């Protein structure tokens, strides 16, 4: 088994680096938290990694549109290296602020191998406020997305003020046609939320919660899979445990479905 190295960005107001690194380690990767400046000044080299994660947080305070300044900084200082990283068949994951950064960099949607055009946006939630809640998600099984392979639905927490996915109709159509819409907000019964608050927590067009590039190797999502790294992260776990007990079963400490996203990434690198 080859070693899988995941680079987890940190610094400048990012704040999910510890748990994201932890999630990758649980999935069998060697995860390194790397300050953005260490990458820029060359102390750490992108080519030593196969997975790069733009984590959640408030990069540069998110004062001028979430993820905007982080994207500017990457474009200015690391644009070519990032392109090489992608061209070499590696994986890029953007979670929450990371997703916002990926769309501002233009890495997503990445139509026709164009990784620099901004054509989708994550803008202010329709509810007008930051919101923390767990959501139901439906996975598009036809999507090429590496990270959601063999999954059909899952629950994850969302925590954002700017998560409303927006673009013009033709772009949305293209995303749908390419099966780049990897996950969508849904109702507890699995049907799409169809915009209904709070199931669609932010007013995203077509309930879009996460998209990938046409290759499926770049994935961005608003929900936080790394915050479901342990069974007790789930809001219903005490009920679930009680139900199992009544059936004479123990509460299992098996890996959560949140970790599957990281596991899929690690497996992909190991198998490729």
């Amino acid at each position: 088994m080859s070693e899988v190295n995941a680079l987890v960005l940190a610094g400048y107001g990012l704040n999910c680096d510890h748990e994201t690194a932890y999630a990758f380690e649980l999935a069998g990767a060697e995860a390194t938290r790397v300050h953005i400046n260490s990458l820029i000044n060359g102390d750490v080299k992108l080519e030593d990694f196969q997975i790069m994660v733009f984590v959640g947080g408030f990069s540069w305070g998110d004062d001028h549109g979430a993820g905007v300044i982080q994207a500017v900084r990457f474009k200015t200082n690391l644009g070519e290296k990032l392109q090489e990283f992608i061209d070499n068949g590696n994986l890029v994951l953007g979670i929450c602020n990371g997703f916002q950064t990926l769309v501002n960099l233009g890495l997503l949607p990445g139509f026709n191998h164009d990784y620099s055009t901004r054509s989708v946006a994550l803008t202010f939630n329709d509810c007008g406020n930051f919101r923390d809640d767990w959501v139901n998600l439906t996975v598009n099984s036809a999507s090429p997305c590496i990270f959601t392979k063999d999954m059909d639905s899952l629950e994850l927490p969302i925590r954002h003020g700017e998560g409303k996915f927006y673009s013009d109709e033709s772009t949305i159509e293209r995303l749908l046609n390419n099966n780049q819409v990897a996950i969508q907000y849904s109702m507890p019964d699995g049907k799409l939320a169809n915009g209904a608050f709070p199931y669609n927590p932010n007013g995203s067009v077509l309930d879009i919660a996460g998209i990938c590039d046409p290759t499926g190797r770049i994935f961005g999502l608003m929900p936080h899979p790394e915050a479901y790294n342990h069974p007790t992260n789930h809001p219903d776990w005490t009920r679930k445990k009680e139900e199992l007990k009544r059936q004479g079963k123990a509460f299992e400490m098996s890996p959560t479905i949140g970790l599957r996203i990281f596991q899929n990434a690690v497996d992909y690198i190991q198998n490729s």
Partner: protein
Amino acid sequence: MPNRLEITLKSNLFDAEGEGIRQKAKNYFGIDLSQVRTIHVVTIDADLSDEQLKKIQTEVFTNPVTQISSFEPLPVEFNWTIWVGYRPGVKDNPGSTAVEAMEDILGIKFGPNEAVYTSKRFCLKGKGLTAEDTDKIAGELLANDIIQQWKIISKEDWDPEVGIGFIIPKVRLDHIPTVITIPIDSDSTLKRISDERNLALNPNDIPIIRKYFLDENVQTARTKVGLSDPTDIELEYISQARSDHCNHNTFRGLFHYHDLATDNLEIVDNLFKTCIETPTLELKKKKSWVVSVLWDNAGVGRFDQDHYYVVTGETHNSPSNMEAYGGAITGIVGIYRDPMGTGKGSKLIMGSYGYCVGHRDYNGHLKPRLHPRRLLDGVIEGVRDGGNKSGIPTPFGQVFFNNGYMGKCLVFVTALGIMPDMVKEEPAEQKDISPGDLVIMSGGRVGKDGIHGVTAASESFSEHTPAGHVQIGDPYTQKKMHDFLLEARDEGLIKFITDNGGGGLSSSIGESAMFSNGCDIQLEKVPLKYEGLDQWEIWISESQERMTVAVRPEDLKRFLELSEKHAVESTVVGTFTDTGKLHITYNGKTCAYIDLDLLSSGFPQWEFDAHWQPPDKRGLFEPVIKEPVDYETLLKDILSRPNICSKEWISRQYDHEVQGTSVIKPLVGVGRDVNSDATVLRPVLDSNKGLAFSQSLMPTYSLIDAYHMTSCTIDEAVRRLLSIGANFEHIGGVDNFCWPNIQYNPGNNPDGRFKAAQLVRSCRALRDICLAYEIPLLSGKDSMYVDGHLPGRYGETHKISALETLQFSATSVIDDITKCITMDSKMPGDLVYVLGITRNELGGSEYYEHFGYIGLNVPKVMPDQFTPVYRALDHAVDKEIVASAHGVYRGGLGVHLSLMAMGGNLGMEVDLAKVPLDNVDRNDTILFSESAGRFIVSIDPQHKELFENIFRELPCTCVGKITEEPDFVVKGIDNKIIISVPVNDLKAAWKKPFKDLC
């Protein structure tokens, strides 16, 4: 030439911010607007080429998918437009990050006179909208004149070429820093200067200060460094250090406690020592998990074999009362520096909040600076941004409405951190300084902000209180510093660390210097936001996001390297010495030279007269109420009361799961909408150990007796922890007192002696209950002047004093988080038990308050009776036979049985005759008495015998069961059904008051 970029959402996109303003204008002021659109304005005061401007416009400031922008005023339609920008010198966080982004993308450096300023323009459309309406929306919704300026322009007066013009809020001081010598020829001269300069010196301290500076030896030594009479910076230093905020003069005071009922007179010397320090040190000997208490910025307890947890709490009342958002964000970001400055530094893992404000719908004649509704909105948002942007979860908090807080609101903020027990083979909780170690200031720069914050916090709010102490915390800058300091700590570079909060460098360096016994400071090295600050201003400025660190000279290089990597500014501003002197120079010239031991010598103890009159002697009595008939409506009405009802809109704005550690969330149950008793984290990700946290405050009981207010508050915090499965053997406490002024004055504070007696009683309860429950006080703070003078409708003013308030926070460590439980009912058929005795204790209850009564029979805590129940519950939870547990708090059994039913969205049948009672024979008393020491528990019927065995001989009876049928059914003691109502209806009533807020 400055340039002004206006940015707005494309017109087909929903403007959530604008819509929020439209709704508030309607709901708060009855002003109908058809549309509000928001324009973000970036004013660039720098020399940039057109090409550069174009580049930043398209690549930084405009999202091509959602926004349009222009360097000309945007033609967004309006009837009136409002521009809101900061006043000069107010922290403009987006302005600073804009500079960072522009420097990066353009590859330039901004000059010292160049800057970016952000502001907003709101375009309001509405039929018949007037200038008065617009000004009201500007002044009472969008801007606060303490920190912001605004302009309103009508459609008719708008010049589409000029727009709002160029408003550059640059600070220009044109002032040469000057040290002034203060004459001390008499006490009255110094008193006069103290008043003029807002030094807030205590008149009793003045003779001691003069004596020091008149001492012959002192004068000789001062002459050698070129000083004579005290300088302004020296007196400012003494004033800060002697303030009640820093020195806790009240708690260390001498109380003449006179019980008027028995005519017994007692001398109570030093409440801190007798009621906090002594009991805590006694408990520390018994509890090996207590690591470090009573000296550092926060208390330290053991979490597991390799980690300690750190906890502290404080308030940020005065600034929040004037500028709610700025005050609250500064408060939460500020408290986060305390764990960072504890031991060699800890990582932040959690924050919590407690807000005490006037009623949201207050419509009386008093005119507070900010209406309670606006104040609460601002405070919520401040803590939201401060916590969320720091990447620290905020999974617990509480709100309490009472119009007594209209004089001054309370904003409690609490912070928890975690640290390894050892750093490079040295104990992490310890720190010290050797002579020769460098004094380093890390983080933000120093400006005029926050000057005299400490002394203002030690005064009642009046129209003369300087507004300049209001700031806007910057979580982004602090988060960078936090990450930097932890890396520096792990490399063993930090010898000593403390935060710059109240009193600025004066406090942080002044207090640090005690560890080596001296320091030499070169004040000109302190990085400033702008030139022209006087030396004393640099010394006491409370500019935020700064830490003071002691670093060995040989570690300086590495420390600065790491600082640069994290984009944090760190500057050597002096050296620690062992000369016994605080020696400050500015460009080589001495401006302060004071013996450090001055502060610990000879200042007089504050004295207070305390008069206690028991409640019955004060005319309190039990109201005469005949039993109600319509219990259903009554219960729904109680559930809808502001201090009982759902406040989900607040919890959901706070990120409560960042760091991936969430175990028990603030909202639990099937609908994830009912408040948990406490919260639990898994701060060390690869361990199944948990850190549990709860908080309580119940100031209403102070109307009867602050002793019982205090004991009930502590008891509630403890029961909250036990309800989620915490360990009764490990409970740490944090006391946060907020009290009105207790210094008697016949004109200004005629009931000061009573309030002083309440404080003495409260401290005694703190001591008694903490000893009984074995709770060491890991940390605590006090805020002593919760009074305000509010204008009325005839030009008169009214002194409004808050209820005597204690917030008590409690921590516990859980060995196995998978044994934690939540309060929601789990399964139909489960048996419902009530633990603990319900007594006739409606005094101060929500039930009485609903009818406008206070009553007399306040709940009492009886540790001897309660403790066996608590241990038994611990045992039952450990055996994993408890399906859900919930404490009985404000509102009594009626409210809390309902909440358990609501949590599971299941029905419940309860027989009140079966509730363990003591001398109670009425249904309303059983349902609404707030007796302490009680729980509601549900269990799987198959564990009945085992469960009842654990509680044998204890007050614990099965009172009913959980039902599939989703109704809440209560049988009264006369065997008749008195309530039968769908649980959903109860939930709807409980959610109703704030259901439209999100």
